[in-house]
């Protein structure tokens, strides 16, 4: 009987709905693992709509590039080649690493250049991501599709009975939307919102998921829109992880709000669903109060969108047979995090959202009445300090506050208690209008008085508009090595060189803070932050000719240039 009713219902749906919904198979990004990662950024195009292709960009030819798998404790080496038509940067969102490796607006990679940052992975198992961070170009380059997931594994997470077969019961989901002009090109100016969903870059995405517990790693990679995520039958699901790691215990919910830049890992039970049945993961964005990003009225214009203020599909799920060894329960406990509390903090800072008010079109959103300036350091943090930051938004709209370098713990919100869904390590917090939030973080391991870290609103249009500040972490280097060294001399050998170029310092205590290799016409070919020089610099890919090597000394930050010939 049930089947008959279903049949009848589907017949009615099919006949009534002349444009019956068709779906496209969800793109599961390719994977890269190991300790050396070659990311080649290129311009490309994709067929998103009927008619002309859309100009896109990405790693290895894909709108939304490969997922990088890191193991906690490994040192990862990145070879980022900018094959784009324009300069860019690549930021490792959520990673704890030296500022000079961070890929913020200061680490500009010109076209044709290879940037080689490296760092030891100290982050907990969780879902991170990489994306461009070039000031005033972030929205355009994100819109084009440059970015990808980073999944960190560690022993603690691996010991748990959690789904982790990538693409089978462990699915990365990148949520974003795009607007197209009449030639099918992406619109990225004067546009806060897209009109059409692209889940992992797939329009109207569907996926087959096994009849068991499934893990979804969801990232909001939007320009501005927030998502109020839930399932079409309002089923309960379990939040197991936040931006920077697993929670101590799962939290059961039916909805979770995800602001731009935030990640959430959830478990959903498909074990009681019939094989062949379907389910939708949806954004329940209808009826949100004004100030919710994507809650504005109107279907067009800078702040209007076809997806504003409505409920819409993120992913259509088809339930298929269970795998051989399915996860059939939610673990009762997950991690054993000890979080900082407000009492741990020895330094208090406040950051206030300003600008952007009605009648002030020339005063975009900022922090503390200022906007991003390349050479202005807004805060100086002492290495190893535990700090409490209070972000206040007595303003007209919600924001997504992101800070580089650290994972923080939200300790209080003006709206009452901190949500259980955001009780873990975070690097982005949603800051609704007329609220404040306080977090505590420890700034450890990496100090650098030259290269700053960023804090900013992660709305790409706000960030590009200057809603961004900078801080440096300093200290920790006082001691025996502070003796002034008179000579900063070094020589290059062999010269001419063929495969590898070695640097010989006149003072053996001298270290390279930065090495940049350029052609005689000034085109940068290599950017090497804090290079490990023992094995020399691999120059085998350079074409024959004369090059300049600029070396910045670690202690004095003095830059010296030497010429060499590649044979």
């Amino acid at each position, binding site marked *: 009987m049930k089947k008959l009713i279903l049949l009848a219902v589907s017949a009615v749906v099919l006949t009534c709905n002349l444009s019956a919904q068709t779906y496209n198979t969800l793109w599961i990004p390719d994977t890269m693992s190991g300790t050396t990662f070659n990311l080649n950024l290129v311009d490309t195009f994709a067929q998103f709509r009927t*008619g*002309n292709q859309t100009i896109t960009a990405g790693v290895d030819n894909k709108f939304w590039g490969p997922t990088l798998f890191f193991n906690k404790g490994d040192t990862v080496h990145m070879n980022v080649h900018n094959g784009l038509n324009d300069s860019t940067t690549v930021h490792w969102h959520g990673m704890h690493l030296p500022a000079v490796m961070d890929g913020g607006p200061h680490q500009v990679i010109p076209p044709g250049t290879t940037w080689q940052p490296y760092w030891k992975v100290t982050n907990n198992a969780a879902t991170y991501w990489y994306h461009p961070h070039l000031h005033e170009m972030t929205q355009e380059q994100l819109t084009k599709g440059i970015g990808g997931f980073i999944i960190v594994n560690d022993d603690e997470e691996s010991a748990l009975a959690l789904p982790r077969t990538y693409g089978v019961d462990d699915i990365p989901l990148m949520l974003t939307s795009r607007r197209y002009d009449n030639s099918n090109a992406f619109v990225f100016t004067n546009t806060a919102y897209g009109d059409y969903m692209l889940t992992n870059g797939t329009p109207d995405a569907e996926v087959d998921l096994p009849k068991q517990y499934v893990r979804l790693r969801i990232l909001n990679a939007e320009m501005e829109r927030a998502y109020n995520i839930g399932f079409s039958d309002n089923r309960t699901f379990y939040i197991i992880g936040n931006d920077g790691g697993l929670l101590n215990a799962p939290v059961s919910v039916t909805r979770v709000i995800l602001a731009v830049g935030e990640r959430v890992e959830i478990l959903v039970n498909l074990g009681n669903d019939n094989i062949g049945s379907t389910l939708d993961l949806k954004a329940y964005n209808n009826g949100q109060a004004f100030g919710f990003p994507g809650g504005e009225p109107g279907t067009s214009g800078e*702040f209007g969108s076809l997806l504003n203020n409505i409920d819409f599909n993120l992913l259509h799920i088809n339930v298929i047979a269970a795998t051989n060894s399915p996860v059939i329960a939610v673990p009762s406990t997950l991690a054993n995090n000890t979080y900082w509390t407000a009492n741990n903090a020895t330094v208090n800072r406040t950051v206030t959202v300003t600008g952007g008010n009605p009648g002030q079109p020339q005063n975009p959103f900022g922090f503390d009445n200022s906007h991003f300036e390349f050479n202005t350091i807004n805060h100086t943090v002492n290495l190893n300090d535990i700090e409490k930051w209070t972000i206040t938004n007595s303003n007209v709209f919600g924001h997504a506050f992101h800070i580089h370098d650290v994972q923080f713990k939200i300790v209080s919100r003006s709206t009452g208690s901190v949500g259980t869904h955001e009780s873990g390590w975070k690097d982005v917090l949603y800051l609704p209008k007329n609220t404040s939030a306080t977090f505590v973080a420890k700034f450890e391991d990496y100090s650098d008085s030259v290269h700053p870290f960023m804090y900013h609103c992660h709305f790409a249009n706000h960030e590009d508009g200057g809603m961004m500040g900078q801080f440096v972490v300093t200290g920790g280097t006082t001691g025996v090595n502070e003796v002034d060294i008179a000579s900063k001399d070094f020589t290059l050998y062999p010269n001419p060189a063929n495969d590898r170029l070695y640097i010989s310092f006149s003072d053996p205590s001298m270290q390279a803070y930065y090495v940049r290799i350029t052609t005689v016409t000034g085109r940068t070919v290599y950017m090497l932050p804090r290079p490990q020089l023992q094995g020399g610099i691999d120059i085998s890919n350079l074409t024959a000719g004369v090059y300049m090597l600029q070396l910045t000394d670690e202690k004095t930050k003095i830059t010296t240039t030497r010429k060499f010939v590649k044979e």
Partner: protein
Amino acid sequence: MKKWLLRYAFHSVAILIVLIILIVLQSFRYENKSVIGTTISDFSLRNIDGKNLALKDYADAKGFIVIFTCNHCPFAKLYTKRLNELNTKYKALGVPLLAINSMDTLVYEDESYEKMQQRAKSQKFNFPYLYDNMQIVGKEFGADHTPHAYVIWKKNKQWTIEYSGAIDDNGAEPTKVTNAFVANAADELLGGKTVSMAETKSIGCAIFYRK
């Protein structure tokens, strides 16, 4: 959320007036931006055969199809075969095709003169491929992406832009082209008509001009 003004201040008459003025100014700016009817002065650029080439070298030309393209742009590369076909057809009708590379050769290693020669040879270009390394001609046309197509026509002994924009409306799938903008413009001009769709958007890789 910067321009709250647009959504909530419409009750303020003063602001409305300002807005109207802004909109009017904006539309003027757009009209001024149109390049159709602009005259183009002759130029002389080095072709891949090592010889310089100028418009006046084509004494009998009624017009030209001018394509700003480059070596490294994936979207521009899709059009190689179509450029040969356009040149074969329209050169015979007095409208030869000229390809010009105005990319910044200091920034892009792939855009060197030697690599232009290699590309023209390997892709069997049947048209000139000119080296605009000082970016003078690209600036004069206002070419903003590769490929950016123009059809210029001789009027009163001067060359005027009669079409600017995309080559057609499908880069990767030539069989699905529904509007061959450049061919249509050339046909209309050869038939003594004005171009019905004179301006479209060129899409591809941005051409950045050195300051």
